[in-house]
């Protein structure tokens, strides 16, 4: 099967490679998705004094450690980009695997955290706060899982020295997922 690239992949009207431009637009639309959700959460939180007590049951140590994990995985992603930029596909693949491992650790911690909370009766239907908590953190976790899968596919190509420019693209997405968590962390775990 011959793999011919579509014209749109190889041309660039804006001076930005098409793939990269597409990722930036994905990030742009994600800002509206997460932004809308977080804005709705903030207005409810400010309008409902009883939510302060609900929020006091989240565990900032889980959230804080997960922030550390994501920040570190972001470092790995940018080091993968650095390696890819210097033509070292094998090294880029290794860093990408490290990044994906960070995502896996993040999800495992989330699973433990949620299990504890659900066993204490804090379920998605408990009240408005917990509905937002599981929705926001859940959509974020889906982004982490999707990012990990794409990262492993790209790492597999990078290992063979193929499509190295994609290492930067998954990095941009991953850093955005990191930024979303940077805001979710104080909103869900710190402000009490």
């Amino acid at each position, binding site marked *: 099967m011959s793999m011919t690239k579509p014209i749109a992949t190889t041309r660039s009207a804006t001076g*930005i490679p098409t793939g990269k431009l597409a990722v930036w637009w994905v990030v742009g639309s994600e800002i509206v998705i997460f932004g809308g959700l977080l804005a709705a959460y903030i207005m409810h939180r400010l309008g409902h004094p009883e939510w302060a007590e609900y929020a006091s049951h989240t565990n900032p140590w889980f959230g804080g450690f997960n922030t550390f994990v994501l920040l570190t995985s972001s470092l790995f992603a940018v080091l993968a980009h650095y390696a890819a930029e210097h033509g070292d596909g094998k090294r880029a693949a290794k860093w990408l695997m490290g990044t994906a491992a960070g995502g896996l650790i993040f999800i495992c911690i989330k699973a433990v955290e949620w299990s504890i909370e659900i066993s204490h009766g804090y379920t998605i239907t408990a009240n408005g706060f917990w509905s937002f908590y599981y929705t926001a953190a859940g959509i974020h976790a889906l982004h982490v899982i999707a990012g990990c899968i794409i990262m492993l596919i790209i790492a597999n190509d990078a290992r063979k020295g193929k499509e190295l420019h994609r290492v930067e693209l998954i990095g941009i997405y991953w850093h955005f997922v990191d930024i979303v968590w940077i805001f979710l962390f104080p909103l869900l775990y*710190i402000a009490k």
Partner: protein
Amino acid sequence: MAEHSEEHGQAYYVKIWGILLVLLIVSILGPVLAPHLEFGFLKAWMITLITAFGIAVVKAYLVAANFMHLNIEKRYISYMLGTMVVLMLLFFAGVAPDVMKHEGENWENVAAEAEIERALAAQADESHDEHDGEHDAEH
């Protein structure tokens, strides 16, 4: 690009990561220590706000500028992303008054008021029970 590599060596990224970790620690400790740090006009809630959300903005900026390379990306991208943030603020400005206020000149959100009253009463009961429990344990 030679300049590019010089400016953004691996050590540079590790340095940014180090700064991010320090900021993370401050954002966790800030709200915990806030009640002890109050002085003059600086109230605990202000310290919490600055350390939790002010620092989140700084962290997000550091990641976007240095890891996503927005600082060397074409301006067009920053404008596009900025527009999305403005749309979010617009949404907040339009909807927040309805959610945050529970009554206006010609309307009252009876359901929201009832829920707040019910929940606060339930929480007060719960904390009473807890205190009663402590007393029982003492006796």
